[in-house]
């Protein structure tokens, strides 16, 4: 039971991630255009949207692993579900922290009923309930089933929450970069690069977390 980072390829992966992140930050700071009136605040976009993308991606993985766990009853899927939900909620929290910071310079007031932010908030609240179920769901095997079911229910509600919030606040001037396609290419390419780096970072994080969970479960089993 060695350390996760004693294995050769894991060391390589974490090194690659560190280098790529540094390149990513330098790339964002230096060769992205300075949008006339937003100046530096616009550059938050390169971090804010990828972490939101990872949050929703990991909640999607929670749904998939929940579905697989319910059908195949294999503990492996539940570990993935737990790891994905933890990292997903971590990134959603990041989005909810950086959102208002980004909104103050651009729109003047911190919290704005913008569809994406509100969907993130609602999902974040649902996942607080998810971790409550994991803590108080009765004995472990049943708690895993309930958590998997909630993971599925939470994600199938994402499109509905997004749609209902979208129509609820059309009058608010929408997210600055809502039309991803028409962005000038020199904004788009660093954004795509940052998105890729964040996704790779996410894969390393989730593998590491699953390894630690297995260690934890393995340790309890022998007791």
């Amino acid at each position, binding site marked *: 039971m060695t350390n996760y980072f004693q294995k050769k390829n894991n060391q390589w992966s974490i090194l690659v991630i560190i280098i790529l992140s540094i390149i990513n930050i330098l790339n964002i700071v230096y060769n992205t255009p300075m949008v006339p009136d937003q100046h530096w605040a616009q550059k938050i976009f390169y971090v804010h949207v990828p972490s939101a993308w990872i949050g929703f991606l990991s909640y999607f993985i929670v749904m998939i692993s929940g579905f697989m766990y319910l059908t195949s009853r294999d503990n492996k899927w539940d570990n993935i579900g737990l790891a994905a939900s933890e990292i997903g909620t971590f990134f959603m929290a990041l989005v909810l922290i950086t959102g208002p910071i980004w909104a103050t310079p651009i729109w003047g007031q911190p919290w704005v009923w913008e569809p994406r932010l509100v969907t993130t908030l609602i999902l974040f609240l649902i996942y607080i309930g998810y971790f409550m179920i994991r803590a108080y769901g009765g004995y472990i095997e049943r708690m895993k089933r309930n958590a998997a079911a909630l993971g599925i229910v939470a994600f199938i509600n994402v499109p509905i929450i997004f749609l209902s919030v979208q129509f609820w606040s059309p009058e608010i001037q929408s997210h600055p970069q809502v039309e991803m396609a028409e962005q000038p290419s020199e904004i788009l390419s660093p954004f795509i690069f940052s998105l890729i780096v964040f996704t790779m970072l996410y894969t390393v994080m989730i593998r590491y977390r699953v390894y630690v969970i297995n*260690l934890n479960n393995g340790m309890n089993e022998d007791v």
Partner: protein
Amino acid sequence: MYNFFGYFISVYVIVFGLIILWFIIQFRSENRFLLKKYDNDKGMN
């Protein structure tokens, strides 16, 4: 030229700081489990 620079820096510090913090927490909890497991194995044989 450097207006809103404060917001930019704070967001990046928060995001990458918390990610590094997360890795540190995982690393420490992993060591704790390995240590506990090592005591178990040592105690066992």
